[in-house]
């Protein structure tokens, strides 16, 4: 499915590589609109640039950049990938590669909040599976799915390093500890269930 994006990115010197990917993956989908309008705001661009001086190479600013964009836009679209690549002067395929490797980065739109339930050993021993099932029932979705109203995406993950509070789950930046099945509904309906309990640093955020 990435073939069509990649054809767009053919640049001198990289042609050969990228065409192979295109041939191997996708011959059918129409190419992405070449005239897609920019999606990164000036503020996001500034933010990304502010990370560059931290590292010896521009490419090293990529992970922070992807966090910034995902925080601002919810996901990293092909157009955004292209623009990030332009800012950091790297091949867009390198951006795509990273998004594929790291589970927290997404090229697909997600729910407004992401629930991550721990599935590792301590939480599992303390009833994590029941919590997961309760959430699935409550939201009517399965793992990796998003509620039809776009409110929540449900994920599971290995140990969240809060094992003494198991079973636990993360909703965006807030850790919910010692969750019991009867707490699930209350937690899901709490509008502040994703807000950290400490003063927030704006390092990865853009305030327009």
């Amino acid at each position, binding site marked *: 499915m990435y073939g069509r994006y990649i054809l767009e990115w053919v640049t001198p010197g990289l042609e050969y590589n990228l065409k192979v990917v295109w041939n191997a993956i996708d011959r059918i989908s129409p190419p992405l609109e070449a005239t897609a309008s920019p999606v990164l705001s000036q503020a996001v661009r500034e933010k990304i640039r502010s990370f560059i001086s931290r590292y010896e*190479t521009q490419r090293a600013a990529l992970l922070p950049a992807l966090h910034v964009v995902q925080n601002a836009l919810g996901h990293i679209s092909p157009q955004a990938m292209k623009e990030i690549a332009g800012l950091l002067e790297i091949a867009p395929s390198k951006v795509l590669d990273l998004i594929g490797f790291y589970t*927290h980065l997404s090229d697909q739109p997600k729910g407004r909040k992401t629930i991550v339930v721990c599935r590792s050993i301590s939480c599992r021993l303390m009833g994590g599976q029941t919590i997961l099932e309760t959430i699935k029932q409550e939201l009517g979705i399965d793992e990796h799915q998003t509620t039809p109203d776009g409110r929540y995406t449900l994920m599971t993950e290995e140990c969240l390093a809060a094992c003494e509070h198991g079973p636990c789950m993360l909703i965006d930046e*807030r850790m919910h500890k010692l969750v019991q099945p009867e707490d699930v509904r209350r937690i899901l309906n709490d509008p502040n269930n994703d807000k950290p309990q400490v003063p927030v640093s704006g390092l990865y955020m853009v305030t327009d």
Partner: protein
Amino acid sequence: MSRFEPILLRNLGVPNATDLTVYRSRGGYQAFEKTLRMTPDEVVQEVRAADLRGRGGAGFPAGVKWGFLPKDRTITYLCVNADESEPPTFSNRVLIETDPHQLLEGILIAGFATRATAAYIYMRNEFAEQFHILQHALDQAYAAGLFGHHIQGSGWSMECYIHRGAGAYICGEETGLIESIEGKRGWPRIKPPFPAVAGLFGKPTVVNNVETLCCLPHIMQRGASWFTGIGPKGSSGPKLFCISGPVNRPGCYEATMDITVRDLIYHRDFGQGMQNEKFVKGVYPGGLSMGVLTGEELDMRMDFDDPQRYGLLGLGTAAAVVIDEDTDVRQVLLNVARFFAKESCGQCTQCREGTGWMYKIAQRIADGAGRLQDLDILSEVTQSMGMMPGLSICGLSDGAAYAIRTLVEKFRREFEQHIRNQKPGNVERALNVVN
């Protein structure tokens, strides 16, 4: 087991301990000021004399590691490993959220000793609140002139940045961490060259764990001989132990490394016994990767050397999870095998395929369609992967091998019992599907 005043957790419970002024009022940053009056080589010497063994899992002495840096270097990087993702470990998290300045002071001391030009704190992305806490502490430290240019008029400059990960266990491996900071997949590198010679951006690099660095202010303040006087020889200094699972008081506790697994579970200073007085069936005492103990092996001491005598890989992260009598070992096997199969980065064939096979077999056993020979196959697969036979790039596959081999071998009778009691026909049905 000797009781002692908390050292690493001495600010736990102190109001506003994350604030610079409060940290200072409790003696904070005095060790760093003392350090600045010494030469870097003297600091390395002191840490070497303290025999500070790395708390990140491998137990390698920090002072010795710093000594591997080439003498004629101009740029040095310090990477702080705050990727803590080994189930069931959370001691780094506790250190960061209760006392972020202790870590920053440790970074300053390590940075000075290694003449580092920049320090990168690699933090797993799930540490959200911890990131905000540490970033605030860092902003405060910068404002007080503790980082940046010409620190405290010493002529030495070091920047410090937090670099957030994005959800990959393998980025905790030191060279995977380096790759990840460089903006690449967190794929561990083939060693040598070791990071001390060619690490981040190809420059000499030191990677240390959060807890290792948190020991430094105390070593510099009170001296190496004070440090070696704590706990048993060869495993000196204070250590954080985690305990979780069905115990009465799960948590992170500080002690000397002469406590036993039994103490950790039952002692009133630590776990305070099993919930509902259940029996202990088994314990993973040092993170999953180190392997499992049976309920009869609880006398193992939690130091750097005793675990090997129980067939384990090492002390690991000193984080124990207790499995009680009601838990089905097949479910434990499934959970453990899944972890490694999902987190293998896939570069080495025997790790990628081996963890995948073991997960599939574990799934079949857990579904009640195991065969007795599956237990042998599991053991055999674990023998053929890892750095120990010299096949893998990193230690993840050794961890997978130990976690699964010790479980299958030490609980073999129980596995066999389950397999013998399965409904007839399950195996045939499952294998038809699989093949």
